[in-house]
């Protein structure tokens, strides 16, 4: 028997009343205006243009950052080019030590970084504090150890660095994506120019400070801020030998086209529409936690989010009932509050995209469920949302929503589950929930996806390669496989 919205709200009121627990922000000073990090110092931009970066939970301006132009990008690439020879020739153990230093500094400044990440991007502080920042530090620590062991990673080869890497990252995990890009590039002896996302540049600017604190040689890391145009100038710059992009499949295709024939090496980590598959013998309570973590983690702004729930028909009803009850206990609100589960949507544009797709779901005939949920008046918010009665042809079952919106479909046999899970041009991740070991491996073998989480979801680790099949991109980040995109083996 399904519970009504009213009942679920009452349940939430009774059992889950929490006092506010905001993270202190007095230890964080955000400069009102930023320059660019080029050649080892913060410099004034040639482009006189700045744009505001706001807190999506309050819509208040946090700082002004540069909209870097062609001259700025050129300066950054040249600074990286100039630094390349000596960085590549530096004794590997020294390169290694710089990366260890950066890792330690990230740990030391973790609280400050977590607060800035949450203020600039809208994600709950418990996620930036417990996931983004520790994983970023761990990533540098892991690749620091590779810097003087590269010959052991590639049997029968003498790996050499490529040159200047142009790296463009998204707004969903700003510092973590920066770490995924910069750590392996530097370990392999490359220098980088990185462009953070337009809406979340602040943790990258703090990272620039950390590079200075670490006394990293000037030009090894350069950071230019801006929007899509700046990114496009960066990847197209002739001085860039390697392009690494994480973002939408649409932009990934533009980049692949734009650098065609240039001889640049390319890795793409693009969108996803992952199936999270629950079999009738799965431990339902654990599965519910995994489903929630799979799609509502970071407001669903996760390329590998489990956005399509495939439930075996025989347990669809009890599972959905549990899931709906769990949704009613999720706390949405101030991202800086330590008890917040669902923070702010990253930007107005993203909110509008989510709203548009959710409308299409209703229009196409899916059944919408949202727990009773009061949205703050200012800022960008979207309640956790669940669609049932979804057909595979609906846009909400095909397109990446990148928001807290779950589409529920059912299946009867394992073969049908495989068929439906793989029925997408994407192939980034997949989830399987069952108590039967042989079935886990059988399913894992058949999922056309780069990461398969069995009886868990959304786990990340620097030693664990991450990346997609099909239109979710190519190349891996993390693990020994994450070095390959940054070395020349010829």
């Amino acid at each position: 028997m399904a519970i009504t919205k009213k009942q679920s709200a009452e349940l939430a009121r009774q059992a889950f009343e929490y006092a506010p627990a905001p993270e202190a922000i007095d230890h964080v000073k955000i400069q009102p205006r930023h320059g660019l990090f080029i050649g080892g110092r913060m410099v004034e931009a040639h482009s006189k243009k700045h744009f505001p970066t706001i807190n999506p939970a309050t819509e208040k301006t946090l700082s002004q950052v540069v909209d870097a132009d062609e001259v700025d990008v050129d300066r950054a690439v040249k600074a990286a080019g100039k630094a390349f020879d000596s960085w590549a020739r530096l004794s590997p153990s020294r390169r290694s030590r710089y990366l260890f230093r950066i890792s330690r500094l990230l740990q030391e400044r973790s609280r400050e970084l977590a607060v800035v990440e949450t203020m600039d991007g809208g994600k709950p502080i418990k996620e930036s504090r417990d996931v983004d920042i520790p994983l970023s530090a761990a990533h540098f620590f892991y690749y620091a150890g590779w810097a003087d062991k590269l010959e052991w990673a590639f049997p029968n080869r003498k790996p050499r660095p490529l040159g200047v890497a142009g790296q463009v990252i998204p707004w969903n995990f700003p510092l973590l994506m920066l770490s995924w890009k910069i750590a392996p590039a530097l370990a392999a002896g490359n220098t980088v120019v990185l462009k953070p996302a337009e809406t979340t540049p602040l943790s990258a600017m703090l990272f620039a400070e950390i590079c200075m604190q670490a006394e990293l040689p000037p030009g090894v890391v350069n950071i230019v801020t801006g929007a899509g145009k700046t990114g496009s100038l960066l990847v197209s710059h002739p001085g860039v030998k390697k392009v690494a992009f994480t973002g939408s499949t649409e932009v990934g295709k533009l980049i692949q086209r734009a650098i065609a024939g240039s001889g640049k090496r390319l890795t793409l980590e693009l969108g996803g529409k992952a199936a999270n598959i629950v079999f009738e013998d799965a431990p339902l309570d654990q599965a519910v936690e995994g489903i929630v973590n799979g799609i509502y983690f970071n407001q669903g702004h996760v390329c590998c989010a489990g956005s399509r729930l495939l439930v075996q028909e025989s347990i669809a009803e009890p599972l959905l009932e549990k899931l709906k009850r769990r949704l009613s206990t999720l706390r949405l609100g101030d991202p800086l509050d330590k008890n917040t589960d669902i923070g702010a949507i990253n930007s107005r544009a993203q909110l509008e995209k989510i709203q548009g797709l959710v409308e299409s779901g209703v229009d196409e005939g899916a059944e919408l469920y949202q727990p009773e949920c009061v949205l703050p008046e200012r800022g960008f918010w979207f309640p956790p949302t669940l669609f049932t009665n979804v057909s595979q042809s609906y846009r909400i079952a095909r397109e990446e929503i990148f928001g807290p919106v779950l589409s529920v479909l059912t299946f009867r046999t394992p073969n049908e589950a495989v068929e439906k899970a793989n029925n997408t041009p994407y192939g980034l991740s997949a989830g399987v929930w069952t108590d039967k070991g042989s079935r886990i491996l059988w399913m894992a073998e058949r999922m056309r996806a780069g990461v398969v989480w069995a009886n868990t979801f959304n786990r990340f680790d620097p030693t664990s390669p991450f990346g997609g099949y099909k239109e979710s991109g190519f190349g891996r980040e993390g693990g020994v496989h994450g070095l390959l995109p940054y070395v020349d083996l010829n």
Partner: protein
Amino acid sequence: MDVRKTYKLFVNGEFVRSESGRAYRPDGMVNVPRGSRKDLRDAVRAARTAFPGWAGRTAMNRGQILYRAAEMLDGRAAQFVELLGGGVRARRELERSVETLVWYAGWTDKLPQVTGTVNPVAGPYFNFTIPEPTGVVAIVAPEGDALSGLVRRLAPVLCGGNVVVALAGESQPLAALTLAEVLATSDLPAGVVNIISGQRKELLPWLSSHMDINAIDTAGCTTDEIKAIEESAAGNVKRVIKLTKDEMSPYLISAFMEMKTVWHPIGV
């Protein structure tokens, strides 16, 4: 008077004429089918259908089939040497092709051990990474070395469990089309390798823009052709493989593989 052979395309395990009914004469004498866009599409469909079966074979079985191909090729050595123009150079090319098949036959069950990993994640999870084939691979065979040129590109791709649509070298397609006869008698399932002859200029745009091809090996392409291929390959994020170094290497197998990582909690 000899009984001459009609050269045909190799699609879905069958020897067929081009659906277009067209032919061209690369050496001025022999008619060779001039494959069309439709022939390519048929080949891709056959390959896609064959993919799960081939990828699902045990590594040992794939190795045995590649080795069988080496046996069949060696058994027809005289025929191929003649086809390649005879003499020491032709014999060397034949030997090199046989050697390539044997070498990769031995890699099928070793690649996952060399490139796969168990990852020591910081938490109670068992985590491993294994290579899996990327899917349907288009190979543009080099124009030189009519036989070994194709075999050197084909063997690593098949080794990993991929299926192939190969474009034979335009100027000398006879050895490639005859190689189909070797593959057809090597227990290679129908559709795993498809070989099309024809005009590169006509076929490359269709090959590089086909939405059900996952990767394309540009071994036989000019710089300009590679640029055009890379542009249209973006339509479905194809992997464009440009490794030109002429050596046998597990890195060449890996270029056509996807790494899959699986997580599972550890607990009681």
